[in-house]
């Protein structure tokens, strides 16, 4: 197992280097003079010379790449052109929203997708099965931004049950737990950044501080975006669970379990489902990329101040340090999570690590 983990870690390194390289090249592809786009159109050649010297733009490309890699590893993602603030700081403010949204969507997808898949497999070739699979096919074909807008129209405009956009209602402020508990932290330290990052998960923050009103409000705001974002993963997980369970239920050991007189319920749950879940675990890992991609569109539709909306605004304003920094961090996170999924998969299924 240790050997397998070490090998997988080793494989991840070239991919991470490649990610750095790709974002570096993309940033250099942008048309226009970086000096003028950052300092403004009126920057004189003399000013630009100093700027280029400071930013290392006069160095040869390999040196620039090395400088860039060094900065990223040290957590310095550059400054946003539009806000004149470190990209890393903006990320700390924005990432928690996206994490909350993606987690909620993944949770919903598992909660609905797995039971749907099981029911569908148990009632194979009945109208229940056909209905579920029609739902799954329509689900994977729906553009997430359209579904989001339709949900807003139905549940916010027509029925008025849930808020149409935003993270909290007007007048609601989430007080960070470290302020509630009177912790003394100095700003601009790593500890402060970390605490801020944690407390920006509003739902988590309000639950640990016992502020139920905020928690309820934040959850109400999260329902529609989470449903919109979860539809495609739900459909995929339902399909995967169904086909995997159908495959397993045809195996000999299921027949043996039935033959020894185990009740059908326990055959399905203890013998079938346990073995059928392995492919589903892989699919969940793969869905993370889809969730992050979908989050960009979902946040845009629901005006949520997450990574996605920031990215969208940065594209419109051609604020490239933000695009570059966000893409590097998200891609790195994506690679690391997939690594964890692979490792847990190997832990669950010994055949993989012996390959």
């Amino acid at each position, binding site marked *: 197992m240790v050997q397998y983990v070490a090998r997988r870690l080793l*494989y991840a390194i*070239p*991919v*991470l280097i*490649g*990610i750095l*390289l*790709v*974002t570096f090249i*993309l*940033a250099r*592809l*942008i*048309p226009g003079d970086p000096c003028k786009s950052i300092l403004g159109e009126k920057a004189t050649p003399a000013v630009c010379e100093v700027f280029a010297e400071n930013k290392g733009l006069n160095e040869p490309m390999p040196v620039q790449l090395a400088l860039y890699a060094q900065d990223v590893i040290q957590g310095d993602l550059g400054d946003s052109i539009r806000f004149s603030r470190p990209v890393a700081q903006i990320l700390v403010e924005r990432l928690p929203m996206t994490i909350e949204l993606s987690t909620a969507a993944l949770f919903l997808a598992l909660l609905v997708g797995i039971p749907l898949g099981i029911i569908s497999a148990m009632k194979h*070739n009945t109208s229940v099965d056909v209905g579920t699979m029609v739902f799954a*096919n*329509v689900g*994977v*074909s*729906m*553009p*997430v*931004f*359209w*579904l989001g*807008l*339709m949900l*807003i*129209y139905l549940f916010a*405009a027509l029925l008025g049950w849930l808020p149409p956009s935003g993270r909290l209602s007007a007048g609601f402020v989430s007080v960070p737990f470290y302020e509630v508990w009177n912790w003394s932290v100095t700003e601009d330290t790593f500890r402060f950044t970390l605490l801020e990052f944690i407390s920006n998960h509003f739902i988590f923050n309000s639950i640990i501080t016992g502020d139920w009103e905020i928690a309820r409000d934040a959850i109400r705001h999260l329902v529609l975006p989470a449903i919109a974002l979860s539809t495609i993963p739900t459909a995929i997980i339902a399909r995967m669970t169904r086909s995997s369970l159908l495959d397993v239920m045809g195996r000999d050991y299921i027949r043996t379990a039935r033959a020894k007189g185990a009740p059908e319920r326990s055959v399905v749950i203890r013998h079938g489902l346990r073995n059928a879940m392995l492919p589903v675990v892989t699919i969940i890992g793969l869905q*993370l*990329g*889809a969730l*992050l*991609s*979908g989050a*960009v*569109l979902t946040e*845009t*539709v629901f005006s949520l101040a997450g990574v996605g909306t920031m*990215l*969208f605004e940065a*594209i*419109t304003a*051609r604020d*490239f340090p933000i*695009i*570059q920094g966000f*893409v590097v961090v*998200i*891609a790195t996170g*994506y*690679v690391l999570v997939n690594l964890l999924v692979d490792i847990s998969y190997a832990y669950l299924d010994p055949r993989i690590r012996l390959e």
Partner: protein
Amino acid sequence: MSRLSRKAEELVSDGLEDRILEEPTGLWRGAWKRLLRRKGGIVGMIIIGIMVLTAIFADVIAPYSPTEDFIGEPNVTRRDGPCIHFLGCDESRPQFIMGLDGNARDEFSRIVHGSRASLLVGMVTVTVAFSVGSILGAVAGFWGGWLDNVIMRIMDVILGFPSFLLAIAIVAALGPGLTNAMFAIAIVSIPSYARVMRASVLSIKEMDFVAASRALGASKIRLLVTRVVPNALTPLVVIGTLGVAGAILDAAGLSFLGLGAQPPDPEWGSMLASERNQVFSAPHLVFFPGLAIMFTVLGFNLLGDGMRDALDPALNE
């Protein structure tokens, strides 16, 4: 009824009997016959057929030009809801079966013409990604060694990004527009084709008929082109069909973010984006373009699934 007889009945209703009695057929003809037995596959083909015909005959089907506006016409205001005479809409008003958009253009005509952009995106991106990906995969799988390593590590890097995010970054760097969007989607989908092709080539190059050709003195290129690749293409056809669906969805998403097709070109994603703030007052302008996207994507997904089942020998024992 016992479990066995029910299973047997299923097999018979599944056409097992016909299959035993019929003449042996080639892979593609057999697959085609099996595809015609799958309801999903047929529905998918019908949907795609409708979309292709709509795209070809868009000028005939659409009552107006997609860019013609009706500002200043009598009885017409921007974002008017649908008006269908047959269903009782006042005859004095001009007929707009999906209403008018924010620039007082006929929504239906724009949706009809939008089918061209979506099908174009689907076809072009998949053709590009399919060709480049399968060539890279075939070369990597057939030659192996360092070439294999270099190609597949590059593919790993592309797969290291969430695909839609990488597409966003590429378009952001190259500048918005439908062509750049297509290019970006093609790039991010190359690795799936390369991986599948490589796996397929790896298993086929060890088969006896390839060894026989090699023994007869066929050159490496000849072996690859005439023996290995044609037999390795089967799984790629399925991925390609499903890829069209994915490409259409991604392109619509990019256009929704303002990175794909630019107004006034009729494209479903950008039509939706320009009216998204009007979802409370003019929901029809959000509803119809999205429905068109879903319908088209559903068609390709159904056909892809049907083809996978039809081509997979394991499912047809």
